[in-house]
C-alpha cells in the first residue's frame, strides 16, 4: 500500500516495521513529530522524556536488556545527549539501538546550525542519511540491522526539509523481531577503565569493518554513470542537486555516510572532468574526497551555511537564477511570529518590560518572543535551561564590578524540567541574588503542545502523575516562592517589586494554561472560566491613545480611520490584559 508520509511519519513507521518496542524523545523542531507518530503504534511504548540525555539513557537501558529501542531529537538535543552516546559507542548494543538527529540547515526554528555528521565521526558510530520519506522508512530498518550486526548504536541524520516534506512511501508489515536474551556481561557493559580500554580497541576494529561495508551498502550508489561531471551528495541535498542537474551529470548518491565509502568514491571520481560536492554546512565529504587525492568543488563554490536548495545550487554553479517577476517589495510589512491572543506570557512580560535597570536572562520557548517589540523584555538566551544559571553568573559579574543591576531569569515549565531544574539548584546552592521565574503554561508550547512531567498526561494521552513545580522548588530549599496568575497585572507588578527587594534567590511561578492547550478536566477545574469570555472596546470611552497596543495582542489594533481601538472577537479569549492596560477603562467584557 502507498501512503503520502512526511519524513518524520516515515521514520516512525520504519521503527514500527523494524520491531522497535521502546521509543523516547524530547520535543524539538524539526524532530517532534517522530515520537508523536510513534504513539499510534500500540505495540510500542513511546515516551516523552524530560530531556534528550535522559531519553537516550532510557533507550540504552532497553537495548542492553534486549529490546529494540530508538531516541529522536533535534540537532542541539544531541549536545545534551552526547555524554551517554559516546560511551554507548564503546559498550555496543544487545538489541538494536538507533538515534535520530534532526539538523536545521537554514535555522528555521533553532538557535544555531550545527552539522551533526560530526558526531558520527567523533563518537565513531555509523551514520545513515535518508533523502526522502521512502528512504527514511527503509533506512531505519537498515539502521537496526547494522546496529545488531556490528554491535553499535547507529545515528540517522535528517534535516528540516526531510523531516517536514511529504513523499510517497510503500508501506510494509512489521518484521518479527524476537527480543534478545539478556546475559550479564560486565566486560562488555561496565566501563571501568580496565574494561573501557579493551572496548576502545574494539571500536577501532569496528570502524574499519564498517568502512569496508560502506562500499557495499545498498544506499551508496552511482547513478547515471558516464557523464564528464560528477556530483556527490547525501540526504535532501541530493534531491536539490537532482532538481538542478537532472540527467546532465553522474551522481554518487550517499546514504551510508559514516564511515564514507573510500573505494566507491575513488571509482566514481576516476576520470571525471569536474566534481561537485553538494553538502549542507560542513565540508565533511569534501575533505574526504580531497584526502583521497581528487580535486573537487565544495565550499569554494557553495555557501557553508544555510540550505543548498535548488536556487542556491543554480546560482553557485551557473551564476543564474530562474527568471522572476520584478516588483516593489517596499510595501511588504514584516510579519514576525507573535505571542498568541490570550497567551499567558503577555501579562508577565508587559510588566517586566517596564522595569529599568534589569537584565532579563532568557531561555528557549514561545516566551523568547518577549525580546521583541512591544515588550523588549529579554537581554540574551543561549540554550535550554540556561537562563537561571547564566543569570546567576551575570548577577555575580555585576556585583563584582560594583554595578547596581538586577537580573531576572525566565524559563518555561518544560524547560524547567529539561535542564532548568539543575540551573535552579546552582542558583539556590550558591545563594544567587537573582529573581527566577518559571512561566508555567501547563504544556510544552512552542513545539506544538507535547505533554511534560507537569502536564498530567503521557505522550499517548493516558493519565500521568503530575510533578508539581512549586513542591519541587520548595523541596530544593527555595525560601522565597510566589505562585501567581500572570494575567493579573497588579499581582505581577507587586510580586516583581517583592522579589527585586530581596537579597536572596527568589522563585516566581506564573501559572495559567497556554491558550492553544487542549484543556484536561483538571485544567478546567483549576482554571475555571479560562478563555470563555470576550472583551470589546467601548468607542464612547476610547480616546485612541494606543496605550493598549503596548500589550502587543494580535487581536487588538487601532483603526486609523476612526482613531479608536478595535478587538477582533474571533481571536479574543478574554484574558483581560488589555482591559487592565487601558487607562480610560474603555475595554469592557462583552455581555452574553
Amino acid at each position: 500500500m502507498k501512503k503520502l508520509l512526511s519524513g518524520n511519519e516515515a521514520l516512525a513507521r520504519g521503527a514500527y516495521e523494524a520491531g522497535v518496542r521502546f521509543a523516547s524523545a524530547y520535543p524539538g523542531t524539526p524532530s517532534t513529530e517522530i515520537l508523536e507518530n510513534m504513539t499510534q503504534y500500540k505495540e510500542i511504548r513511546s515516551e516523552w522524556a524530560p530531556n534528550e540525555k535522559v531519553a537516550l539513557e532510557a533507550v540504552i537501558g532497553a537495548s542492553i536488556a534486549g529490546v529494540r529501542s530508538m531516541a529522536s531529537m533535534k540537532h542541539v538535543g544531541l549536545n545534551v545527549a552526547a555524554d551517554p552516546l559516546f560511551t554507548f559507542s564503546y559498550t555496543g548494543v544487545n538489541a538494536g539501538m538507533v538515534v535520530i538527529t534532526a539538523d536545521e540547515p537554514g535555522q528555521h526554528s533553532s538557535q544555531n546550525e550545527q552539522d551533526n555528521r560530526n558526531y558520527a565521526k567523533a563518537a565513531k558510530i555509523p551514520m545513515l542519511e535518508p533523502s526522502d520519506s521512502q528512504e527514511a522508512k527503509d533506512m531505519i530498518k537498515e539502521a537496526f540491522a547494522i546496529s545488531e550486526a556490528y554491535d553499535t548504536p547507529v545515528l540517522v541524520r535528517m534535516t528540516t526539509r526531510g523531516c517536514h516534506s511529504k513523499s510517497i512511501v510503500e508501506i510494509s508489515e512489521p518484521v518479527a523481531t524476537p527480543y534478545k536474551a539478556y546475559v550479564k556481561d560486565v566486560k562488555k557493559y561496565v566501563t571501568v577503565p580496565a574494561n573501557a580500554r579493551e572496548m576502545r580497541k574494539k571500536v577501532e576494529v569496528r570502524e574499519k569493518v564498517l568502512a569496508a561495508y560502506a562500499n557495499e551498502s545498498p544506499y551508496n550508489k552511482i547513478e547515471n554513470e558516464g557523464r564528464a561531471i560528477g556530483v556527490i551528495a547525501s540526504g535532501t541535498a541530493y534531491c536539490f542537486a537532482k532538481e538542478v542537474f537532472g540527467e546532465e551529470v553522474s551522481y554518487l548518491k550517499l546514504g551510508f555516510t559514516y564511515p564514507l565509502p573510500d573505494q566507491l568514491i575513488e571509482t566514481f571520481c576516476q576520470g571525471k572532468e569536474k566534481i561537485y560536492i553538494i553538502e549542507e554546512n560542513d565540508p565533511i565529504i569534501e575533505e574526504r574526497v580531497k584526502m583521497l587525492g581528487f580535486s573537487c568543488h565544495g565550499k569554494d563554490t557553495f555557501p557553508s551555511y544555510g540550505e543548498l536548495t535548488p536556487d542556491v545550487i543554480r546560482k553557485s554553479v551557473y551564476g543564474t537564477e530562474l527568471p522572476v517577476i520584478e516588483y516593489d517589495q517596499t510595501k511588504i510589512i514584516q510579519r514576525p511570529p507573535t505571542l498568541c491572543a490570550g497567551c499567558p506570557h503577555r501579562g508577565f512580560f508587559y510588566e517586566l518590560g517596564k522595569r529599568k535597570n534589569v537584565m532579563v536572562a532568557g531561555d528557549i520557548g514561545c516566551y523568547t518572543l518577549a525580546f521583541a517589540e512591544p515588550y523588549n523584555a529579554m537581554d540574551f538566551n543561549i540554550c535550554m535551561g540556561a537562563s537561571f544559571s547564566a543569570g546567576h553568573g551575570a548577577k555575580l559579574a555585576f556585583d563584582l564590578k560594583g554595578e547596581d543591576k538586577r537580573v531576572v531569569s525566565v524559563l518555561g515549565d518544560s524547560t524547567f524540567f529539561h535542564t532548568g531544574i539543575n540551573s535552579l539548584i546552582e542558583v539556590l546552592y550558591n545563594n544567587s541574588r537573582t529573581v527566577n521565574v518559571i512561566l508555567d503554561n501547563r504544556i510544552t508550547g512552542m513545539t506544538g503542545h507535547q505533554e511534560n512531567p507537569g502536564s498530567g498526561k503521557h505522550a499517548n494521552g493516558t493519565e500521568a502523575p503530575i510533578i508539581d513545580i512549586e513542591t519541587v522548588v520548595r523541596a530544593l530549599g527555595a525560601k522565597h516562592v510566589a505562585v501567581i496568575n500572570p494575567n493579573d497585572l497588579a499581582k505581577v507588578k507587586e510580586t516583581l517589586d517583592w522579589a527585586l527587594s530581596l537579597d536572596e534567590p527568589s522563585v516566581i511561578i506564573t501559572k495559567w494554561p497556554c491558550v492553544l492547550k487542549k484543556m484536561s478536566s483538571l485544567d478546567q477545574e483549576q482554571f475555571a472560566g479560562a478563555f470563555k469570555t470576550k472583551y470589546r472596546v467601548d468607542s464612547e470611552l476610547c480616546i485612541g491613545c494606543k496605550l493598549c497596543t503596548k500589550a502587543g495582542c494580535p487581536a487588538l489594533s487601532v483603526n486609523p480611520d476612526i482613531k479608536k481601538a478595535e478587538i477582533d472577537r474571533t481571536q479574543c479569549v478574554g484574558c483581560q490584559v488589555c482591559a487592565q492596560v487601558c487607562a480610560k477603562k474603555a475595554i469592557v467584557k462583552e455581555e452574553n
Partner: protein
Amino acid sequence: MTKSIMLVGVGGQGTILASKLLTQGLMEAGYDVKMNEIHGMSQRGGAVSSHIRFGDNVASPVIEKGGADILVSFELMEALRWLGYLKVGGKIVVNNYQMNPMPVVMGKCSYPEGILEELQQKAPTSAFNAMAEAQKLGNPKVMNVILLGTIIKLMNLEDINWKKIMEENVKSAFMELNLKALEIGKALV
C-alpha cells in the same frame, strides 16, 4: 513535467488541510508528489508557506524563486510577499482578506494600500473574499476548501475524484458543507 503549487498565508489560517487534500488527490491520480511545509516558530502568527510539486518524477520538495505555476495566497499582503516565487507567466489566486501584522497592530504603520492592483499588473490574478464566501456558507473554517476549489479548476485537476478524497479526510457531518465549498471555489475562477 513537474508542476508547482505554492500555498501561502498566516500561521493558523488552515493551509495544512488544503494542502493535505490536494496532495492526497494528486497521489491517487497516479502522480509522483512531494510537499514541504515549515513548522515551528512561524506557527505563531508568522508568514507560512506550503510547497506542493507533482509530475512523473519529482526531485526537490522545495519550490525555488520563479518556480511556482500558481501562487495561492490565503491573505492579501502575503501574496505580495511571496510573488517572487511565481513563475513568469504563472497565475495568482488571492483571498482578498487582510490580517494585520504586529507593526500594524502596534500602530507603527498602516496596512499597505494598492496590493491587489500591484498583483493584477504583474500576473493574471483571481481575487475574491473567500472568508466572506465561507461565512455565507455558515462556517468561516471552510475558507481553505473554497481556495482548494480554485486550484483544482485552474490546474485542470477536475478529473480527480475529490469527493472520495474528502470522504477519507473530512468528518461525515461536514461533508456536505465542504463539497459545497469546493464547488463555490471552482465557480469563483
